[in-house]
């Protein structure tokens, strides 16, 4: 009996702990995924929650009204609510993907993802009671980190007939100043919106980032290959790898000859980065990529970003596959926003900030529901390595492929990319960069699909944006 009693005690303990596990896991998921589930398109409760509530207004960081609800009373006294978007059509179209509309055309845009605030889900009982006397309940007003003027300007300089995306963020705080996707649509117009127009390419479009990824390969080389900075490489326009002698070629079969690591970076020499990638091996490159958040399950508070991937599987890449990955091709898939975060991390001494969209949410009674605070997402690389990469990126604008992004009086650092996509006639032009200046801590990413090289197509657009930001 004594042994039996001991065993019963053990059983009781195990059973009790076992029963607590599901709820523990439930609490974890509720914290991590609660907002995503609540704002999911499958949630029918949202519709019932929305009825009887006039959604709060949405402002940009300068107080420009982006959306508000117009409540009108019919003759019989019945109230009806109508959502009205920004007055200026250019602004309306520029922020359409970030703000979205009440029909949920753009998935997980502010209009649906911040429904909790806009429809006043956190309203207290007394507040509800005192408000309901006036007719319709009013949700919280939301102020976004976006700058509608900057957004409209970017839309005006982006090639009108092209698809792509542009992201501008403050690399010290993570505030998103612009989040654009092209082509856009007008939320005020009643016409149908195409699938292409509804897609937010800044956050949901995954693609190979081309040579802009060399920022990551360079960081990995600084970490894992000793004396990489002092070495000289020889570029003959291509390198062959593996049994089948598949070749990594340089863009336009350019032959860069003998060059240092810095020069290889500024000239965006594929051969050199292919050699670096195969020298350090899959493990080292994968680890640094993971440090930059590639492969993470992104659960940011304010927005939904598609997860980036290093490769389609976890099995180690070999030969030409690994070499091409080092040059930013192969199976790499990142969003423009994530690429912007990578450049921002380099600018911010290696610390990657969480991208934020919400500046504050204020209830109709004046109660503050949420206020912005900068959040560190992860440390991508050491401050020393970040300084080296920054110096290399500065050189790209001074003497390399990013010369057409240079702005007089601003310390612009950048990396261009030209991603080759098999199914497209032309390449995707990528550009990531930032201003190395404490007064103007901005990083950006511009992608123009099916257009040409990063240096010739994306860099001039970035230059205009930098000029606008710097007031030059």
């Amino acid at each position, binding site marked *: *009996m004594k*042994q*039996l*009693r*001991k*065993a*019963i*005690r*053990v*059983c*009781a303990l*195990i*059973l*009790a702990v*076992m*029963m*607590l*596990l*599901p*709820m523990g*896991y*439930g*609490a974890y*998921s*509720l914290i991590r*995924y*609660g*907002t995503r*589930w*609540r704002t*999911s398109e*499958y*949630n*029918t*409760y949202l519709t*019932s929650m929305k009825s009887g509530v006039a959604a709060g207004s949405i402002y940009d960081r300068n107080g420009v009204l982006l959306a508000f609800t117009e409540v009108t009373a019919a003759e019989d006294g019945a109230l009806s609510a109508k959502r009205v978007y920004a007055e200026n059509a250019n602004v309306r179209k520029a922020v359409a993907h970030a703000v979205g509309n009440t029909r949920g055309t753009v998935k997980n845009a502010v209009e649906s993802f911040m429904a909790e605030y806009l429809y006043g889900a956190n309203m207290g009982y007394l507040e509800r009671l005192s408000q309901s006397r006036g007719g319709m309940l009013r949700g919280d007003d939301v102020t976004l980190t976006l700058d509608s003027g900057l957004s409209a300007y970017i839309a005006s300089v982006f090639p009108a007939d092209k698809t792509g995306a542009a992201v501008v963020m403050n690399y010290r705080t993570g505030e998103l100043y612009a989040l654009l996707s092209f082509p856009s649509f007008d939320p005020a117009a009643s016409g149908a919106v195409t699938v292409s127009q509804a897609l937010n390419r800044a956050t949901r479009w995954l693609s190979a980032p081309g040579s802009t990824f060399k920022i990551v390969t360079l960081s990995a080389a600084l970490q894992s290959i000793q004396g990489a900075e002092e070495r000289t490489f020889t570029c003959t326009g291509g390198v062959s790898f593996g049994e089948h002698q598949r070749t990594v070629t340089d863009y336009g079969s350019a032959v860069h000859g003998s060059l240092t690591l810095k020069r290889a970076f500024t000239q965006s020499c594929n051969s050199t980065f292919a050699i670096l990638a195969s020298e350090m091996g899959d493990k080292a490159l994968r680890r640094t990529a993971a440090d930059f958040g590639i492969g993470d399950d992104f659960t940011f508070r304010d927005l939904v970003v598609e997860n980036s991937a290093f490769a389609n599987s976890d099995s180690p890449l070999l030969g030409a596959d690994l070499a091409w990955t080092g040059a930013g091709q192969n199976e790499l898939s990142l969003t423009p926003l994530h690429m912007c975060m990578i450049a921002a991390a380099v600018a911010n001494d290696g610390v990657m900030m969480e991208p934020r969209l919400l500046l504050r949410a204020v209830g109709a009674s004046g109660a503050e529901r949420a206020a912005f605070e900068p959040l560190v997402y992860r440390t991508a690389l050491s401050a020393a390595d970040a300084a080296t990469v920054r110096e290399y990126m500065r050189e790209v604008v001074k003497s390399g492929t990013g010369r057409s992004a240079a702005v007089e009086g601003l310390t612009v650092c950048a990396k261009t990319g030209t991603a080759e996509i098999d199914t497209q006639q032309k390449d995707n032009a990528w550009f990531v960069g930032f201003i190395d200046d404490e007064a103007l801590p901005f990083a950006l990413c511009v992608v123009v699909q099916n257009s040409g090289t990063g240096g010739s197509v994306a860099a001039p657009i970035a230059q205009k944006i930098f000029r606008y930001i710097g007031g030059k």
Partner: protein
Amino acid sequence: MNIALKAQKRKRHDLQRLLTGTVMLLIFAGFALLFARKPSPQTALMALAVPCAAGAVTAILPRLFPMDRLLLNLINFLCALGVLMQYRYNPGRGVAQCFNYCAGLVAMIACALAVRHIKNWRLLTLPIMAGCCGMMALPFVFRAANRNLGATAWVAFGSFRMQPSEIVKIAFLLVMAHLLSRRKVVLALGFTGAMLGFLVLQRDLGTAAIYGGTAMVLLYAATSSVLLILGILGAGVGAVAVLYALFKNTYFLTVQNRISNWLDPFATYDQLGGGYQIVQGLIAMANGGWWGTGLGLGNASVIPEYQNDFIFATIMNEFGFIFACAVLLVYVLIVLRAADIALRSTSAFHALLAIGSAALLAVQTFIILGGITKFIPMTGVTVPFLSYGGTSLVSCMGIMGLIQGVASRNERILHEDQRLAEGEGGADA
């Protein structure tokens, strides 16, 4: 009995009365809220009748024969909460659940009395085992009752439907406790194997997991042998592997389906038999948040089986996650109390019976809560005491009756010992 002991007992009774009062108040408040939203005479009647019934049961039953008041209070709370939730979405079902509760009460008393009074289980074991096998084979006879269902687990007589595997749970516990108290480990293993075989054939994997988990706990309690448990686990994995190889493309398609629904229910949302139910359950949980939408304000009825397997999601939706955690703690408390009763019992059979019953309820709660919160793959089993349905409630109350029977027997033996001790003391004086 000395005076100090009596005072202590009275104090404990006062605490129990407080608990009963709290349960009554809570349930009354729930129905009153429903009444305030939509007044009807029936709701008013329920608001008075359900708390009064709960109070009356806790006041009267322990006077008939000694039983554990705490357990009675806790299951009354759960059952009344179940009735409230059923009534909130479907008044007819709420009323029906009251009758189910009455049937459950009868089952509980019957089981408790049986455990209290029957001494010679040895003679009964073999007939019970045969009866178990017969019951488990029944659903295969009633083909029509199981059409269009995932499992072949039902038996129907006219409009009356039941799942034999629910009722067999009670017999299973009795048989296992008896066999293991007499150290007949091989026979116990064989019996468990037979039951699992029937359940796998019925395609009722959730219930199979309940039987298997309970048997495992009982085996460990009886033998204290970790090796045996590891061996059984290994054999189980081996058996599943063999079955998988044999029925990869038939039987295991459903299993694979469930696993992919578990890994990413949103991906299979639109498929037939896909993640729809799990996704809506998770959304109901998220809509409720920490504090719930409020009773009568949620919309958990979009979840298929919201009144049965997903009743906990319904509670999380309207009462919130914090309240749901408190409800879970009630279950944990029931299990710990049952373990306490097992520890107090004087015979191996009764100790094993109590801990086995606790294990069965615990495993069942774990399986369904794990499924709802996406902790483990979803297998449809009912939530003890809360889910709608007569068989489930009768079975759970019957199992509770087994625990109550052991508690009652403990009490009687304690009394007899005390009387003996007092008698001896009297002789000394």
